[in-house]
């Protein structure tokens, strides 16, 4: 099930057939988030309408925003005769009511099992209806081929491949991001601005999935990466992709490198001092600009906090779970604060994570347990055996606290049982500091809530009580 000593042996998946309390969702929901970060985009899922309804539910609860997702509403008849007519009708109606400039088409396990050829259907639709002024971007996301993390990367790569064409060289660097919070995106944009860089951020949900109150309600929220900028990503001097665990076959940055020779720098997410330093060093190298005082000061505050909190943080025995990229960044952040995770888990089957973790975890007193294709039954089991005292990840792990009194620090996607999933900031020096304080204080909260009982158990005899 899980490999002791991640540093020595590659991780394994679950050995059971049972996935008990899932740690991940399916591919299309990740694809939806990617398309929501494109300017003027609407997304349509080719499948039964329940998929779209379920995915709206989880996205809406995470972002606390309207998240419109259309469906081709396949019924029994189409499973026999094919879903082409439904998909075309759906495109008609979405275009009519939403008037998008971009229409992403994602598939489901149903459409894929039926063998629907969405490329062909879209091509024939465009020809029949003489569609112009709308880009229809089909991306296969068969739910049985990966998790929402892979679905996200598949869609971003699909979007890049759709728009990429030879472009004149320009100064704007490419910044490609995994599924992180709008708050994190805004922080990354601020940092890029402070470094005096022009950039194309792909995708950009910073406004579309966290829109401020005000103005007339628009069906498609303003914001997102403009498609013209995506088309010109081929002429960028470099791609920075926070995709250190992203497999090449799904990697948008790798696509730009292979097809258009844009050099790819794959970095970990800028969460944690080390990861953030790496990002700053890269930006410094690319721009030739010095790191501005503002960021140096923020780094100083973070350093200060790390020193201040080390005595508490070192007591942390964390379990970290979620999408591979986030799990890697959090592991690295915790390790540099003396709280090496005891359990590291992801729902993805992703050997790159195991490989990337080696330098972080080798030499640890207690080698962490790494679980791939994890479910919460396996995470729980490993966490209890390892004496975990704090869990870090999305809402799916709430049972760890409800059943085992392990406090859960919510971060990642989806957060559907607390407010403000879209506003959780953990990127940059500032974000790392926010994360670190929350981490430390979660440990302290738990300590102060339980220490009297603990002391009583340890030191007081029944007579002396």
């Amino acid at each position, binding site marked *: 099930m899980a490999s002791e000593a991640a540093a020595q042996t590659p991780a394994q998946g679950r050995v059971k057939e049972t996935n008990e309390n899932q740690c991940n969702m399916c591919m299309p929901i990740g694809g939806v988030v990617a398309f929501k970060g494109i300017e003027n985009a609407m997304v349509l899922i080719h499948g039964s309408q329940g998929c*779209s309804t379920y995915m709206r539910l989880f996205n*809406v609860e995470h972002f606390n925003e309207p998240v419109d997702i259309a469906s081709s*509403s396949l*019924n029994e008849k189409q*499973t026999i005769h094919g879903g082409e007519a439904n998909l075309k*009708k759906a495109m008609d109606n979405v275009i009519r009511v939403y008037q998008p400039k971009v229409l992403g088409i994602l598939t489901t396990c149903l459409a*894929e099992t039926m063998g629907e050829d969405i490329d062909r259907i879209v091509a024939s639709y465009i020809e029949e209806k003489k569609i112009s002024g709308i880009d229809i971007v089909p991306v296969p996301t068969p739910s049985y081929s990966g998790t929402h993390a892979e679905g996200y990367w598949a869609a971003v790569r699909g979007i890049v491949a759709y728009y990429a064409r030879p472009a004149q060289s320009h100064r704007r660097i490419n910044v490609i991001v995994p599924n992180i919070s709008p708050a994190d995106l805004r922080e990354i944009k601020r940092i890029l601005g402070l470094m005096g860089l022009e950039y194309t951020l792909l995708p950009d949900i910073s406004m579309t999935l966290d829109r401020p109150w005000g103005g007339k*309600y628009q069906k498609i929220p303003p914001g997102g990466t403009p498609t013209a900028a995506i088309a010109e990503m081929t002429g960028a001097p470099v791609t920075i992709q926070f995709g250190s665990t992203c497999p090449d076959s799904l990697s948008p940055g790798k696509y730009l490198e292979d097809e258009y020779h844009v050099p790819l720098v794959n970095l970990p997410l800028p969460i944690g001092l080390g990861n953030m330093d790496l990002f700053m060093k890269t930006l410094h190298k690319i721009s030739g600009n010095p790191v501005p005082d503002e960021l140096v000061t923020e780094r100083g505050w973070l350093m200060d906090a790390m020193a201040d909190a080390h005595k508490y943080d070192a007591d942390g025995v964390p379990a970290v779970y979620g999408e591979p990229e986030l799990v890697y960044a959090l592991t690295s952040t915790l390790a540099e604060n003396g709280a090496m995770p005891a359990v590291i888990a992801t729902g993805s089957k992703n050997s790159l994570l195991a490989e990337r973790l080696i330098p972080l975890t080798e030499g640890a007193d207690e080698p962490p347990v790494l679980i791939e294709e994890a479910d919460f039954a396996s995470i729980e089991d490993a966490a209890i055996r390892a004496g975990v005292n704090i869990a870090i990840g999305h809402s799916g792990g709430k049972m760890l606290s409800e059943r085992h009194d392990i406090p859960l620090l919510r971060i990642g996607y989806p957060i559907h049982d607390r407010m403000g999933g879209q506003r959780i900031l953990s990127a940059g020096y500032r974000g790392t500091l926010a994360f670190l304080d929350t981490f430390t204080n979660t440990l302290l909260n738990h300590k102060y809530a339980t220490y009297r009982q603990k002391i009583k158990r340890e030191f007081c005899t029944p007579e002396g009580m």
Partner: protein
Amino acid sequence: MDGIESTLEELYTQYPETVKKNRKKHLIVKSVAEESCPQIEANTRTIPGIISQRGCAYAGCKGVVVGPIKDMLTITHGPVGCGYYSWGARRNKARADATTPKDKIYGQMCFTTDMQEPDIVFGGEKKLAKMIDEVVAAFHPRAINICATCPIGLIGDDLNAVAKAAQERHGIQVLAYNCEGYKGVSQSAGHHIANNNIMQNIVGTGTGKKPGRHVINILGEYNIGGDGWEQERILNDCGYTVNCVLTGDSSYLDIKNLHLADLNLVMCHRSINYIAEMMNTKYGIPWLKINFIGVEATNQSLRQMAKCFNDPELEKRTEEVIARETARIEPVLEQYRKICRGRKAFAFVGGSRSHHYQHLLKDLGMEVVVAGYEFAHRDDYEGRQVIPTIKSDADSKNIPELHLKPDEKLYKENHEYLNMTKEQFEALKKEVPLDYYEGMYPDMKTGDIMIDDCNHYELEELVNKLKPDIVFTGVRDKYIAEKMGVPAKQMHSYDYAGPYAGYDGAINFARDVAHALSTPAWKLIVPPWERKEEPEEKSQDGVTNA
């Protein structure tokens, strides 16, 4: 009226002609001239590309009906998503009791075969069979449900064969539900599939009748936020024995004994009327549509129930409970009425709630001006008398209709269950609408709108044009209304609140609605520098009033 008609005409202008024609049939404005409800189109296919609120057959079967059965371990057979998305999303509460210990309750957990590509190509039967063996070894459940997701029907996994073999291997009941998401036109298909299987394979297999003078079931109550528990409290107080609440906080053991009751109460007509009807046919147990959402509605339901049993003592006790509870909550409700009175609401939920909640809102002095269901059938709007006239189509024909016969041993006449003569029963039927549901229409007022399968676009337009004070809907369109400055309440899981049923529920609901209506945020939308000049006026909390 003209105003509304032209408003509605505008609503449709953005649709292509065929869509416009289709959607118009799903909407009715109540007119004073029409006493009976005009025909509304419902339970027909959703137009592709319209952002409907509807879910799928799997959601109806697993998510709504069988998922809440607390001691049955439910396996989602399919890729990983569907299991995750239906995991705890409905807040069906369950608790341990005398017959079901804590370790036999699986409602907080989610089990899936998490099918991978090879399973789709080579079939998932073996994986499913092995998974059943694993969960039996780990949990020793009393019984197992297997719910199919979309690809299962296509790849041809024979769930019934796997279930049958597992049943023989383990000596516990294993039920397979062919509730692939594409079946039918909404979650309604899944309700029907679940009803059929429960009725055919579980109900009637037990022999343990609960003691009590008047033993009843509450069908179609899912105990969201504890609704069912509040109903049980009241009914116990009146002197009833609640045999089973189907399926909120129900146990497999209770459902086996479902037929050992004297009267079936039907809460959610849409999702459970099949079992109510089939039990009437097979066992002769009459059913009564009740509504415990709303104070007056609860009182009326209790009075109608009391009449059914021909027991003066029961009627007396019922009146005592009504008097005591009403006196207890009235002063509290009156406080909230000060905020709620005269406010206009929209209600778009489910297949029964948009009707139920109209009663509670009326108690608070509010009126529902637009109401609609996501997945209801014509009878939920127009009343059950239209059922014989509903045309079956390709989608409804795919869900088998069970034709049960009276049970040779257990069938009794309706009146025998209610401890009265046939003549008394006939007289009772004139007074109490047994085996009948009148639908939403009679409770709507002239000029009110009924809309079936309302979508995001229509919701937005209606909010814009009719400017309600509050919208009761699902979380999926809650934030659309809120972005437009109209508070919205999540009526599927109650925004993590509840219970809303019965007397205590009425107070909870009134408080939550009052909160939504009076949140200071709504008054602070315009920043001070954009407000029209007016005499500086400070409110007590120091906030300058807009």
